């Protein structure tokens, strides 16, 4: 296993929106097949880190490699669920149609989605428990339901790496359990999952890998080794005491 390329390798990454760096000299190696949480306070740069992996934001220094190559060459290997779908909710489109958009990447230019793509999308909708809403216009869905549609869309992308920015935001407990089960299933299938997560209590239960981030990279590794009060305090600044039962 040693000689396998990491899913994502980040070297000396620095990102600034204006002049002030929001990510400072990040080095990070994410091995293939982990279910990883990124934790850190609001404004720590978690979303920014994900966006720079995706090349949505250009770093001022450093590099990101996806399976040993720049992201641009690995576009089809990465699926992304944004923090708050910055889409036009009034767009004339249905839940099913939105999920089908996840298949566009593998279709490439010009070629149109057909029965096969539709079947994939329906299966994904079923998985996230949204099949009965397939013909709904998307603005007529609740926030949690919209979140699930975006998860389904990422599922049909059939990527090797999934980047999810707070997928549990605003979903109820049942849905959260359903989503985490899907994520665990994906990991079993060998996928790499990177999830921005705020609920520190559930980190040991949900994840096997964790990265602490607050402008700088604090620590990254297996949850059982590094998820401790020391790292939490370094990340969140205050004296942190989380009951970590392992």
């Amino acid at each position, binding site marked *: 296993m040693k000689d396998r390329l990491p899913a994502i390798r980040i070297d000396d990454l620095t990102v600034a929106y204006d002049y002030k760096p929001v990510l400072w000299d990040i080095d990070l190696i994410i091995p293939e097949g982990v279910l990883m949480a990124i934790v850190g306070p609001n404004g720590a740069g978690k979303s920014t880190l994900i966006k720079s992996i*995706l090349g*949505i934001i250009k770093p001022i220094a450093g590099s990101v490699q996806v399976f040993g190559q720049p992201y641009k060459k690995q*576009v*089809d290997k*990465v699926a*992304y669920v*944004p923090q708050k*779908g*910055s*889409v*036009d909710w009034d*767009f*004339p*489109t*249905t839940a099913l149609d*939105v999920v089908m*958009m996840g298949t*566009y*990447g593998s*279709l*490439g*230019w*010009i070629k*149109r*989605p057909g029965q096969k793509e539709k079947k994939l999308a329906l299966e994904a909708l079923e998985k996230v428990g949204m099949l*009965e*809403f397939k013909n709904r*216009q998307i603005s007529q869905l609740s926030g949690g339901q919209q979140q699930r549609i975006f998860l389904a*869309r990422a599922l049909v*992308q059939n990527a090797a790496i999934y980047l999810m920015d707070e997928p549990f935001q605003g979903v109820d407990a049942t849905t959260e359990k359903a989503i985490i089960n899907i994520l665990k299933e994906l990991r079993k299938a060998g996928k790499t999952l990177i999830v921005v997560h705020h609920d520190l209590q559930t980190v040991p239960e949900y994840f096997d890998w964790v990265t602490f981030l607050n402008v700088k990279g604090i620590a990254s590794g297996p949850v059982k080794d590094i998820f401790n009060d020391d790292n939490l305090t370094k990340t969140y600044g205050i004296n942190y005491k989380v009951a970590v039962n392992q």
Partner: protein
Amino acid sequence: MTSAQLEIQLIGAIVAIACAIPGTFLVLRKMAMISDAISHSILPGIVLGFFITQDLNSPLLILLAALTGVITVILVEFIQKTGLVKEDTAIGLVFPALFSIGVILIAKNANDVHLDIDAVLLGELAFAPFDRLVVDGMDIGPKSLWVIGSILLITLTLLLLFFKELKLSTFDKGLAATLGFSPAILHYGLMTISSVTVVGAFDAVGAVLVVALIIAPAATAYLLTDNLKHMLFLSCCFGIFAAIAGYWLANVLDASIAGSMSTVLGIVFLLVYLFAPKQGVFSVFFKERQQRKEVSLLVFLLHLQNHQEAEERHVNHLREHINWQKVQAKTVLELASKNNLIYISDNIVSLTDKGQEFTDEALLYITTNKVTAIEELKERFFLFRG
């Protein structure tokens, strides 16, 4: 109908379709005003093109003018990116500047340019049939029909090829980018086609009214459907209708054809806005009223189910208990009995078997959070709606 009349309507209809297609995407991208900017700022491009080609229908002139349109978009975006002003302000800064350059160019060269501002702004569809395209001594139809027809053909081809990409990048730029469909290419592609269409159409309907043909059909269709393909189709239909109805309106009123077309578009929009089955002002009003009544009915039925005691189900008691006014209580009672959900004996209200069944099922849906299924439940049980 004379052949000239037929040709005018045909040109009008084709212009309308050619405008409705990019218009649909512009409206969805909330960029409707950029078409206004383009339509004005192509003026200097048209004038310069006219100096060079001396022919309003020459492809070179169309390309030159369309280029001015794309430059407008780039300028607007550049000014906007400085972060000092908002997009509408940026548009307001750019197009008057370019437009006035065009006006000055025309005024300065009034003697050798057979181009007047009125014609550019308002167009004159009525004259279109007189400017014929003659090939090898053979008359093959009005020039503008060929011009706008070719533009429509290009637009349609691009639409068929890149529908998926345009849809995706309009809906979710971020995903389009991550899936490898460059939003910038699609954006400027759309801007180029819009500019070319505006230039091709201005001769017929004028640079100002072309904006109506771009925005109004799409905005109208948007009120009627949740499906992008249907929206495109409906936009085209509204455009064609406005072209033909506008022509005859102009005939009756002896008015400008383009002006009449725009008027028809405005009226159609207003009618749809008021009467659209789902989102129209009236239907929203009536649906809300119906919903309110039916929710009251459900509350009422649940109350009956909860209370076996006779005094809780006495007609008068219900009124004060559920705190309804007389009229509301009466309509709800009536609706319930019309649908055979309740029966009343000695002023005591009881659920019928059907009412019991309906209430049980509704309760199940409410507690399992499947409220959507209630609508379908009503379809099954109700003979009369609220």
